[in-house]
Structures are given as structure tokens and as C-alpha cells.
């Protein structure tokens, strides 16, 4: 198993609210939490995860709610890219062609389309994960029914593979601990092992998938070198550094 991660926190312009959200996530022992802004602008010093000696890791994530295909544009500046398709056709396109890491399943409305096995298998082969968010279930009892129903039908189709559970929390009170979330996974039809993976190893796969999205085939990584000036004497070490990056 790998460290626990919550890969979906809602962004607000209210800086103090974002900070308290991240601090609660650290207290709940989540380790990576995506927010869509430069992280150093958000908090100078990231809080230490409860019971551990290292700080929480915060990533950038963009979620595109797609109702038409032209809505999607690939952004490499973000660590994680997620898409929430509104129709079956867009779901098909997202599973087979779009360059994304996560496909979100809507939990706030009755199942908008039937999730078929063929696009799900296509997405699984490409390493894309499906995401179910649970904070809507905490807020409202009708949403709870939709969350469970949609999640159960997804789990039946994907057989518990390539699934992540995250919060989509707007307030610190909507966050839950990793073992609670894996228990919630049991309600969705996951087995004990799958439910625990949904908050740990599957999330790690998503983060790695996001990193490889910025590379060429997951092998070559290019990095902007610090500065061309003041003089050419800097050039040879930078070249060897780039060569070293390329061979890694």
C-alpha cells in the first residue's frame, strides 16, 4: 500500500478556508491534496501530516466539466487533469482519446447515462482512473442516494479496478479519515482490498500518470534550465544536467 491521498478538494478564493481545509486533511492523514493554484501562494509552510514527520504534499488539479467536446483543452501546467463528461458520447471520447488522468462520475444527479463496459475497459488500459466523490453524500440525503447508486453501477462495470475515492470537500468538516473512506467503499460494492487501494495505491497511480503526461511517453523529461546569462561558461554543466535528465 502507499500513502493515503485525497485527490479532490474544492477551491475557494478564501485563503483562510483553503488553509484550514489543508490543515484538516493533514490531520486526517491524507498526504496529497490537489488545489488549482500555485501552492506557495496559498501557504508558506505546509502542515505536517498527523503522526508522521513529513509535510503534506499539495498538487494542482483541473477538473473540466464537459458538455461538448470543444470544452476540453489539455493543460500541462497542472499536476492532475480530470474531466467530468455529461453525456455518453463524451464519456466514450474521454475514455478512448482524451489525455486526462481522472474521469469523474457525477454524484449529484441521477445517473445521466449508462456506463458501458467497453469504454471503461478502454480507460483502464490507458491507465485512467474513475473518481467518486463522497462529500455530496455528507451534505444531503438525496445526493447520498445518487452517490451510492452511481458508484455501485460504476463498480459493477469496472469490477473495482481503477477507482479512486475522494472528497470534493468545500469545508473542513466534509473531510473523512482514510479508513472511513475505505469503509465507504464497501458500501459501493468494493472488496476490503479494493476499497483500501482506492484511497492509496490507485491514487499513487493517478499522480504518476499525471507526471508522465508532461513527459514524452513517460521516458523523457525536459526541464527549463535556470538561466542562459550571464555567460557561456554556464552552458556545459547545464547540458550535462539535461543529458542526465534525458537518460533517467
Amino acid at each position, binding site marked *: 500500500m502507499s500513502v493515503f491521498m485525497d485527490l479532490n478538494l474544492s477551491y475557494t478564493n478564501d485563503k483562510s478556508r483553503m488553509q484550514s481545509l489543508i490543515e484538516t486533511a493533514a490531520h486526517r492523514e491524507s*498526504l496529497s491534496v490537489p488545489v488549482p493554484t500555485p501552492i506557495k501562494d496559498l501557504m508558506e509552510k505546509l502542515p505536517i501530516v498527523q503522526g508522521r*514527520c513529513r509535510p503534506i504534499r499539495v498538487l494542482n488539479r483541473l477538473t473540466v466539466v464537459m458538455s461538448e467536446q470543444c470544452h476540453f483543452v489539455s493543460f500541462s501546467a497542472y499536476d492532475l487533469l480530470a474531466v467530468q463528461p455529461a453525456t455518453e458520447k463524451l464519456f466514450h471520447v474521454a475514455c478512448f482519446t482524451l489525455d486526462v488522468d481522472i474521469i469523474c462520475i457525477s454524484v449529484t444527479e441521477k445517473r445521466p447515462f449508462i456506463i458501458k463496459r467497453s469504454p471503461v475497459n478502454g480507460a483502464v488500459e490507458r491507465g485512467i482512473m474513475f473518481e467518486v466523490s463522497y462529500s455530496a453524500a455528507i451534505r444531503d440525503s438525496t445526493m447520498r442516494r445518487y452517490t451510492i447508486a452511481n458508484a455501485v453501477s460504476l463498480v459493477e462495470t469496472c469490477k473495482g479496478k481503477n477507482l479512486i475515492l475522494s472528497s470534493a470537500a468545500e469545508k473542513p468538516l466534509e473531510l473523512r479519515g482514510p479508513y472511513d473512506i475505505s469503509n465507504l467503499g*464497501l458500501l459501493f460494492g468494493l472488496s476490503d482490498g479494493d476499497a*483500501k487501494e482506492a484511497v492509496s495505491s490507485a491514487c499513487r497511480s493517478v499522480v504518476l500518470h499525471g507526471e508522465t503526461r508532461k513527459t514524452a511517453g513517460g521516458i523523457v523529461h525536459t526541464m527549463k534550465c535556470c538561466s542562459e546569462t550571464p555567460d557561456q561558461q554556464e552552458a556545459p554543466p547545464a547540458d550535462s544536467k539535461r543529458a542526465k535528465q534525458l537518460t533517467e
Partner: protein
Amino acid sequence: MRAELDQTPRSLLVSERSSFRDQKTRIRAQVEQLHFNYKVSVLLPECCSAPPHLDSIFNTFNSFYLIRNLPVYELLDKNFLETAVYQGSVYGVSYRTRIDEDNCVALTPKGHLTLSLDKDSFEILGVEGKPSRFNHRTKCRFVVSVDLTDSSMAPGGRGYQRLLTGLRSRLQLKTDFLLSHYPGGGASLQALLSRYDWSEHRPQISRHTLTDLSCPALLTSDLQSCDPHSFMEWVGAVDANVSCENSSSSFLSSLVCPEPRTTVSRALSVSVCGLLLPHDVHRLIQEIRCYLEQPHLESWVCLTVHGYADSPVSWGDNEHSVLKGGENFYSLLMFQDDTYHLHLATGAHDTCPP
């Protein structure tokens, strides 16, 4: 809802009845094989203060040391191996590391160093290891198990060099570490301790007096007492100070004392927490046997020993992990006639206790 929802994760309970006087009794081996004990609790019925001999045993449990940010390659230090590992029994386990999330380290008294590593750390370390038995779909956890007393791991040998280079320059693994040594105490560890930020700790002792405690009746060795699962639940409830009343006005606990039951007017529960050595547990068991030889109102004592939930090994060198709970403990119910009931329990990700 699916039918599997009423199934809880697997747990194992092994129950054994024997006598201390029986020559084939395995109690000593069973106690010694659980290397890393976190908590020992003793329940003494009809007793309001611990007798002095028992108290002195509690107070003379071995101290242990906490080293902050110890680089793990230091456990391969030649001087440390010669003065501590080869000479006696060193017990060491990483502190504040979660077995299902982080890299964990354990050093057992026989000189076995076990590293439970996540995939990235294992690949960086570059030493032979096996995938964990408890991996689910993907192989995300690996176990490197090394016998430091073996000739291939002698300082200067190839295996030794490879592991040392891996821990020193490739992986650079550092954890907080709990360390204890028997019999020498701290003297043989001083060289290692002096190089890092360390502190010595005494095991913490707490005592609770319980009044009007309902406990299972017929707790004698010859009669068939209550079934092990209900008995273990009751022992756990008493230890955690959870009420077994099951009153209709309270929703906190629906645990009950198994029938038939009796009420004991007072009882003493003593707990000791820290890195406790099996040797001290064994001394405690012998002292409790002496205590039981004297006539008492109730002729039994219950001793429960909990292992560390995040230790890479549980009994012997068997791999241990955490699914929902990492329990590995045993409960010893001792009687006046030197007989005992032993219940050994583990959680889902564990091997069968001995």
C-alpha cells in the same frame, strides 16, 4: 445492498489450554516469539492494590531508547553488530511509521533485520527482497529480510556491502527508532546512541481500580467456560474501560459480559506501555503464578499482551501488516492450579499465531 456488507475482515483466534507443569507446554516459546510488545495489561479480581512483589516486577521492566531520525545503515555498523547484535538480544522497531503507508524497519533479537518497503524505495534500494504476502492487485509493498548473523552478511562480505551501500547512498532511509537490549541494557548501545538525538524512556504504568465488575462465572479450568470470542470481547471491554451494562438509554456500547456471570466487588487493572521485552513478560507470568498460589477470593488472573500494530513482523519472523486493524496480541487466563487458557489473536493481514 450486497450480502458481503455483513462480513468483517478476517481475524484469527487460536485458543489453547494447558498447564505450566506440563512438560510439553509451549508457553515460553509463544511468549518469546512475539518480539515487540507494546502493552501488557493485568486484571486482578478482588484486589484493590497490587501486591508488592507484582509491583516490583512492573517497576523493573527494561527501559528502552528512542533515537530520532536514525539512518538505518547505522544498524549495520560493525561496532554495533559486535557489541550488541552478536552478544545478546537487540529489539528494535521503527517508530511513527505506518506499515501500510511508510517504510518500516524491525530488528529482532536473533539478528534478523526486516525492512518493509514501498515499491519506489525497494527499487531504489536494489537489494534482494520478496513481494509482500498481503499485496492485493498490484505489488506495492516489498519485504527485505536479512540475517545479520549469517556469514554472508559478515562485515566486508558482498551481501553486507550491497545492503550498506544501498542504505547509505541510494535509499538513505531514516526513521525514528525504538531500541532495547537484553540483558546488557544501554551500555552496549551507547556507541550508537551517542551519535544521534536519543532519549531513554521507562515503560508507563497505569492502574485502575474497578468496582462492581461483572465477569464471567465458572472461570475455572475444569469446567467449560464461555466461548473464546465473547471472553476476548469482555477482556477488551474491561481493559478499555467500556461499560458492559448495555443499558437501553446508552447507545455507546452494546457489549455484554458473557453468561453465566457473577459480580466481583472490586478489581485492579494494571497496564504497562512501552517497548516491552518478552523476558519481562515471562518474569511477570512467573510472579503471577506465585501470587495465585496463595488463597484468594477469585482464583484467576488475566494477562493480555499487545504487539505493535505497525511492526513488520509479528510472531517469529512472520510478516505482519494492517488491513483495517493491525492487532496481534495474546491473552493468558491463569488459574490457581497452574493451568491456563491461552488465546492468540491476529487481524486480517497476518499469519497464524504459533
